[in-house]
Structure formats: C-alpha cells, structure tokens
C-alpha cells in the first residue's frame, strides 16, 4: 500500500526558502571571486617587490663590473690606439702603386738591343720612354710588347718620335699608360 504524503506548508514559504538558498550561493561565489582576484593582486604586488629587489642587486653588480672595466681604461686605450694605427698602415699599404708596377714591367720587357735613355712614370701611370735601339728588330719587339695588352698592362701606346741615326740605330720616344 502506497504512503501518501501531503505538504501542508504554504507555497510562499517554499518559494522564500529557495530564494534565500540562491542568495546565499550568489554571495558565496562573489566572495570567492573577490578573494581570488585579491589574492592575484597580492601575488602581483609581491612579485613587483621581488623583481625590484632583484633589479637593485643586478644594478649593483653592473656598477661593480663598470668600475672594474674602468680601472683598465689605460689598457683599452692602448689597444684601441694600436688597432687604429695598424688599420691605417694596412690601408696605406694596400693602395695600388702604379709607378712601381710600371717601372718593373718596363724594365722586364726592354730587349737587349734597346738602351733606355730616359724613363718617366708619373702618379697617373703615364710612362714616357726615350731610348736608342740598335737596329729595327729591338724597337719592333719593344713596341709589340707594349702593344700586347693580353700579356702586359699597358694601354694607349704611342711612338711620339722616331729618328734614324748615322749607323743602324734608331732614337725613339714612346708614351704609354698603365691600365
């Protein structure tokens, strides 16, 4: 046989009780949320204080390191000066020197039959050559060598003057330019 229960309490009382229950839970949740957020804020503030302390310590170490390096200022100065000077020397030594190259090249290609009377090499690499050739073969050989741009570094080779002497000798003036 089934039992029959009958709620004789008024319906308003049940509604009021439910309302009260919801209200209590809402307050609890709100308090918990505020508590969590406040705890987060406290942690953040704590971290800031911790990081500030760390920064102060690091700054102190930086100051000490700077003082150490500053105490070796003289060593750094000498090293810097030495490097600057050596770099300048290297730059100057690396400058192309056409004059030396020109003189060396000319003396290498002058044949036996030719005697150089005068040779001038200016700073632009222009070479003026005067000489005496014993026979036309030597002169021809010299002019060919100066004109052969594949073997030598000369360009714009020109015979400025050529005169034949009493014997089989030729006086000549040649101008040429280093590439």
């Amino acid at each position: 046989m089934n039992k029959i229960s009958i709620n004789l309490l008024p319906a308003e009382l049940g509604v009021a009780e439910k309302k009260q229950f919801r209200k209590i839970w809402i307050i609890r949740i709100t308090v918990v949320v505020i508590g969590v957020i406040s705890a987060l804020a406290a942690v953040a503030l704590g971290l800031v204080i911790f990081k500030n302390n760390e920064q102060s310590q690091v700054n102190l170490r930086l100051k000490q390191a700077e003082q150490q390096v500053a105490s070796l200022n003289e060593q750094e100065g000498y090293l810097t000066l030495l490097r600057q000077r050596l770099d300048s020397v290297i730059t100057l030594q690396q400058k192309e020197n056409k004059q030396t190259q020109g003189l060396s090249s000319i003396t290498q290609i002058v044949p036996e039959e030719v005697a150089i009377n005068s040779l001038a090499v200016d700073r632009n690499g222009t070479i003026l050559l005067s000489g005496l050739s014993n026979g036309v073969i030597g002169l021809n050989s010299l002019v060919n060598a100066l004109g052969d741009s594949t073997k030598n570094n000369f360009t714009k080779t020109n015979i400025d003057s050529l005169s034949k002497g009493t014997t089989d000798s030729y006086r000549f003036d040649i101008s040429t330019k280093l590439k």
Partner: protein
Amino acid sequence: MKLKLPQLPSGAERYQLLIWPLVGIGISILLLVLVIIPQLLRIWATNQKIETTKDKITTLNQKYDQLKRIDLNEYKQNLNEALIALPLDKDIPSGISQIQTVALNDQIQISGLIVGSGTTTSNPASYQFKIEGVGSLDSVKKFIADIQKGPRVMSLDSVELSSGNKEGSVYSVNLGITTYSQVQETKLGPLDQPVVNLNDKEIAVLTAIKQSTQNTQIISQNGTTGAKGKSDPFQ
C-alpha cells in the same frame, strides 16, 4: 475557487540578487585594471631591464678578462713601433733617415733631397720627398722596392730615369716619394663596447714593422732609436 497569483518582488527586493554579483564584478574589474594588469606590465618591463643589465654585466666581465690579459708595457712598445710606421706628425727626420739608410744599402748616391709641404687637411696627412740620385738600374729598382718595405710607410709617386753615361749602366733618377702621418684620435667607446683584439692581419703588419725596424735603423721621434728632435724644422 479563487486563484491567488504570486506577488512580484518590489523595489530593492527585486534587485537584491543582482547587487552582490554586480559588486563582485565591479571590485574584480577595478582590481584587475588598477592593480593586477599594471603590476604585471611593470614586472614584464623590470624583467626586460634585468635581462638587459645581465647581458651588459656578461659583456663587461668578458671585457675585463680580456683587458686584464693585456700587458701594458708590451702594448706601449707595440704602439711605439706602429708610430714609427705612421707617426703622429710629419717626423721629417725619420723620413730622411729611411731614405738615406735605404739609399746607402742599395748603392744609390743621393745628390738632392727636397721635402715638400704636403697636405695636412687629408687624413692621414701626407708630404712628398723629391729625391735626385745616381745608380744602376738594378740599384734603382731595389731602392724603390726597399723604400716601400721600410719601417715608415712610403709610396712611390713618380719616377724619372735617365741614362747618365753612354753605356747606359748608370742612371740619374728623380723620385717622388710620399710619406704619411696621422693625428691620434683618443676617443674610447662606451664601457660596455666589446674589446676587439688584434686580428691576424694586424699582427702580421706589426711583426713586419718590427722586422723592418730591425733591418733598417732609422732616426725617429716616436721610435726607440736615435736622437729626438723637432719633427718639422720648417714650422
């Protein structure tokens, strides 16, 4: 039967349930906006600063270790050698000395030596020696090569050769030789700028200068050899 409708909550009672969550959300937002987010940003910025400072400290410590290894006397000596190659001022005596020493070694008879005024505006500054001399072609070639290998940096500017006798064995030579000087810049970089030691090329040049200083003894204001006098007697 008469049906009784439930009464609607009135006034504050109606919003009573909303007030607590609203207050909670308000406080949370305020804490987030005014405290948590600014502090987190501050922590991030501080962290960045700390990292940068730590990097600086590492660089400075490395620099200190490098500088500590530098033998000051050795570097002073090295700088003196380098100043022979490229002096601070004209140092005309060292130029003349080098020319004369090389000419003597290479059997070139110098009959005239003129010192030009040169340029002081360029960096490095330069001036020219005009040399008149006599010697064989081989001697002239050797002189030109040796003068450029000497301790002081010199470069050949112009050459004029003319045969001095009929056989063509002796030549008169007119040479234009340029030499250089450079004012020292004494500015040092910031403290945390890393130290760069001498590289292989610089060490090679320094060794070459030392070697040539031993081979060709010249009088120099900056060097260790010879008398010390006025660098530019025309001034």
